[in-house]
Structure formats: C-alpha cells, structure tokens
C-alpha cells in the first residue's frame, strides 16, 4: 500500500496530504508520523492540506488527533493551506479544530514553527493549554 511520504525539514517534518486520502492512508500517516517524530526527535510538524478539496469529520478529527499526539511527543503541529470552502464546510459541520494551529500557507507555517521552537520547546499558550 502506498503511504504518504514524510520529509525532514531541519528540526521539523513536512507532509503534503494528497487530494484523495482514504481512511487506511490516514491511519498509516498517523502511525508513520508518530514513529518518525520519535525516531528523528523532530520538534515540529508541518502538514500541508492545500490540495484537499474535502475534509469531513473523520479527516478533521484525524488532524486534531495528530496534533494532540504530537504534542505528547513534544512536537508542535501546524496545519497549512486549508481552502476557504473547506473551512466554511468544516465549521458548518460543527468542527473548528480548536487544538490545532493553523496557518495560511507553507511560509507562514514554517515561520510559526520557528517561533514556537526558538521560544524554547513549546509555547505555553491556548494550544498547549487546550489539551
């Protein structure tokens, strides 16, 4: 089964989620990410969802889950590139992903991760406290 590749970007990991991710692929990504965070000691994870045309409640919760689990493994997650129609639909569905940091695009996401990392291993802010 093909799996979503995870790239190393300095102290962070970088993932681009394809357009059509089925449940199997999603679970595999979750597993692979956690494994890699531990293996590389990564402190940050950037997830690019700009190609995703649909994010339903399963995928939304998956993103939230990845953020929570990563935090436990001492890594911050930033999700970038959510499309406007996807954001509107997700909110209408009842999910607002409160525990997940979001950024407009990859550049902003990297900047956000840098900031979180240089501030010394995780910011004490609403995201960390949200758990």
């Amino acid at each position, binding site marked *: 089964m093909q799996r979503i590749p995870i790239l190393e970007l300095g102290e962070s990991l970088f993932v681009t989620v394809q357009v*059509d991710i*089925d*449940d199997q692929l999603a679970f595999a990504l979750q597993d692979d990410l956690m494994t890699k965070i531990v293996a590389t000691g990564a402190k940050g994870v950037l997830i690019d969802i700009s190609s995703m045309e*649909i994010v339903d409640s399963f995928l939304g919760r998956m993103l939230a889950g990845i953020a929570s689990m990563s935090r436990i493994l001492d890594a911050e997650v930033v999700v970038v590139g959510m499309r406007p*129609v996807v954001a*509107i639909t997700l909110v*209408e*569905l009842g999910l607002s992903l*409160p525990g997940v940091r979001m950024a407009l695009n990859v550049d902003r996401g990297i900047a956000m991760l840098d900031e979180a990392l240089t501030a010394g291993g995780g910011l004490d802010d609403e995201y960390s406290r949200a758990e």
Partner: protein
Amino acid sequence: MTNTVAPNDGTTQGPRLYPILSDNDVVQFRHEVRAAAVAAGLRLIDQTKLVTAASELARNALEHGGGGLGEIGPPEAVGRRGVRVIVEDDGPGIADLDLALTDGFSRDNGMGMGLPGSRRLVDSFDLWSEQGVGTCVIVEKWAL
C-alpha cells in the same frame, strides 16, 4: 425558428447506484457525487458541502451499518436543478433517533454520526431508521 425540443444535457438520466462496502468505495462515491454536483451547476461551496455530507453518510453506512448502497440522481421536485443523494444500509438502525439528531452531541468529540452537521450542509434532509432493519438518508442540494 427557436429550438422547441428540450436539449438532452445528460443530467436528467435516471439515478445511479453505488455499493459502499469499503474505504475505497467511499472515496469513489465522493467522486461521483462531485461529478454530479458539477454537472448540475452547483457553486464550489455547495459542491463541497454536498460531497462532504455524502462522505459523512457513506462512512456511517460503512461503520455503523455494515456496508450500504449509495444513489445519485436529480432532485425529486420537478424543475429543480441540483443533486439528490441517498445512502442506505441494512444495518442495526439508529437506537436513539432523537439523540442522534440533537445538535451538539457529536460536536468535536469523535462520537456520534455527525447527522446534525450533515443536515446543515444540505438543502433537504430526510431520515428513516428502524432498529433491526436499517437506515436510509436522503439529502438534496440545489443550484439556486
């Protein structure tokens, strides 16, 4: 002389059926719903809402209903442009219908079947469920 015979634009063919028995079937179903939504002239936001709702329903059928059947066709009302999606299963049915349809129950907590949420995404929503028999949900999204 004007064209007095209605052009057959291919969007008013009869409904099509799709099995929902696996992960991949759900993905396929999403594609088909998307195609129908595009053909019916729905705006992007409405396409997204419909496909997302269809995904929720299909997942429910798979996870709670033991697999199901999806149907995509034109809206029931004559003259309406849009798409009608039906998802049904022969599963155990919904035990507590009121609870399942109560808003806030499944919000952000990973439980429930996301029915109130799906309902907000569509223009018409009909639900039938009987314990021990199955569940059938019919939704429509219109091109207004």
